[in-house]
C-alpha cells in the first residue's frame, strides 16, 4: 500500500482532533482530542520513517508517547483540580478571565 495514504490518514486524524478541541466542551474530551492530534503526528513520524528508511521517526514516536504521558499527568492534575473547585469539567465554565 502507498505510504502516502498513511499521511492522509494522519492528516485526517489530526484534523478530527483539532476540530474536536474546538467543538467539545468537556475538558477531558478536549484533552483526548489533543492526544489524538499527537498520535496523528506520531503516525506521520512513523510513516516518514518508513518512507525515509531510517529509524529516527520511530524513535521520536516513542519520545512523543513519553511526553504525552507526562502531559497527561500534568493535565489531569489541573483538570481534576478545576473539577473539584467548580464541580464541572466544562471548559466553557472557566471563563472568569477575559477581555
Amino acid at each position, binding site marked *: 500500500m502507498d505510504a502516502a495514504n498513511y499521511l492522509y490518514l494522519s492528516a485526517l486524524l*489530526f484534523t478530527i482532533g*483539532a476540530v474536536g478541541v474546538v467543538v467539545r466542551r468537556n475538558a477531558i474530551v478536549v484533552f483526548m482530542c489533543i492526544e489524538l492530534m499527537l498520535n496523528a*503526528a506520531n503516525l*506521520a513520524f512513523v510513516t*516518514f520513517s518508513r518512507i525515509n528508511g531510517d529509524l529516527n*521517526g520511530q524513535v521520536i514516536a516513542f519520545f512523543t508517547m513519553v*511526553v504525552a504521558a507526562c502531559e497527561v499527568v500534568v493535565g489531569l492534575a489541573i*483538570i481534576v483540580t*478545576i473539577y473539584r473547585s467548580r464541580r464541572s469539567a466544562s471548559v466553557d465554565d472557566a471563563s472568569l*478571565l477575559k477581555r
Partner: protein
Amino acid sequence: MVFSAPVLNYTLLSPMLILLGGALIGVLVEAFMSKALRPITQLSVTLGSLVLALVQVWRIRNEQSMTAAMGSVVIDGPAVLLQASILIISIISVFLIADTEHFTALAASLPGSEEERHAMQTGSQVTEVYPLTLFAVAGMLLFPVSSDLITLFVALEMLSLPLYLMAGLSRRRRLASQESALKYFLLGAFSSAFFLFGAAFLYGYSASVTFAGIRESVVGGGGNDVFLLIGIAFLSVGLLFKVGAVPFHAWSPDVYQGSPTPVTAFMAAATKVAAFGAMLRIYYTSFANAQWSWTPMLTVIAIVTMLFGSLVAIAQRDVKRMLAYSSIAHAGFLLSGVIALNKAGLEASIFYLFAYGIATVGGFAIVTLVRDSAGEVTDLNRWKGLGKRSPWVAAAFAGFLLSFAGIPLTSGFIGKFSIFSAAYESGAKSIVIAGVLSSAIAAFFYIRVIVLMFFTDPVEDGTSVEIPSALTSITVIFSMVVTIALGVFPAPVLNFISDLATFIR
C-alpha cells in the same frame, strides 16, 4: 549492528544538568524535609543551582560545539548568551517567587475549603514551586540550544509543563488562577500538537531530524517542498504560540492575569527568551535558505502582532493584562529580529530579549508590591496617585514603562533601535514603519499609567504599597540599574553580544 555508547560533553551540558540535579533535590526536599525548614532550603537550593549554572555558562562562553550531546545540542555564542540571559532573569524572578505570600499554601486543597484554611493557619506552605521553576528553567536552557527536532520538542514540553502547574498556584483568586492553568495547559498542548505535526513533516521532507540535516535539504533542494512548507507552518504555530504572537496570543492575557505575579514575571521574561532563542536558531540555521517562503508570513504576523498588542493594550484596565498585551506588542517587535535574518538582527534580538526580560521582571516586581487587604491590586484605577504615596516605587515603574515605550536613555530604546535597524537593513521597511506606528500607539497607554500614578489624586480605598522585602528590592533595583545602564552605556554589553552572536551551523 554496533552499539556505541553515547558521548556526552558534560562540561557543556553542565548548566542544564546542574538545574535538573537541583530540581531533583528540590523534589526530595519537598518529600522529606520538615515543613519549617523547607522554604529556606528550597530557596537556597534553587538559587544555588541557578548561580552555579550561570557560573558554568560563563566558563564555557567561548566554547563552540555541535556535538555536546551527540548532535542533539549545540553550544555556541548565542547559546551562551541566551542561557545566561535566562539564568539571570530566572535568578531575579526567584527573588520574587521567594515571597510566599503569592502562593497557595496547598495547591491540592479546594479553594475556600477548611483544608486550605488550616494549611494557611498553620503556615505549612508547600514549596513545590521551586523545583518546578528549576525544571522549567532547565527546559528553557535546553530549548534554544537544541539542534534536533526531538530535543526541541522535549525541551518545549519540559519548559511548558511546569509552567502550566505554576500558573495555578496563586493564593488569591484561586479559581481564576486554576482557570489560567487550564487554559494555558489546553492551548499549550494544542499548539504543541501542531508543533509536533510540523516536526513530522520536516522529518518527512529532509529525512533528518537534525537542524543541520534540514538545512542541507533546504539548501540542496530536491525534497518535497509541500512537506517543508507544512512543516515550517506548523512548527511556527508552536513557536509563535510560545512567544505570544497574534493570532496565537490569546492565552497570554488570561494566563498573565491569573497566574501568581512572580510566576507571570518569570514566564513573561524567561519563556520569551527561550522561545525566541529557539526560533532564532531554527530560522537562522535550518530555514534560512527557504526565506522566500516564510518571510512574508512572519512579516504579516509581526506587523499584526505589534499593532494588535498596542491597540488592545490601550483598552485594558488591569495592569497585568496591560503588560500582557504590551508583551504581545513586544513579540511583534522581536519577530522583526527573526525576519531580519542577519547578524545585526541576531545581536539585536538577543540584546532586546535580555533588556526586555529584565525590565519585565522589574515591572511585575512592582506589581507585586501594590496591595490591599485582599492581596495584589491590579485594577489600574486603583493605582491612582501611587506617585504621591510611594514616589520611588512609582518612579521605578515609570522607568520600566518608559523602557517598554522605547524612550531614549533606557534599554528599551537601544533594543528598539537596533532591532528595527537590523530589519531595515534586511529590507523589511514595512516592519520598521509598522513598528514606529505601534510604538506611538503603545506610548499612549504607558503614559496613561504614568499619568494615573503621578498626575491623578489618590483614592482612599486601602490600596497601599508593601514595603518590599530585601529580595524584591534587589530585583527592582537590579532591573532598574540594568535598564538605565543599558540605555545610557550599552557599549560593553553590545560588544560582548557582538563578539559571541554567531550561530555555528
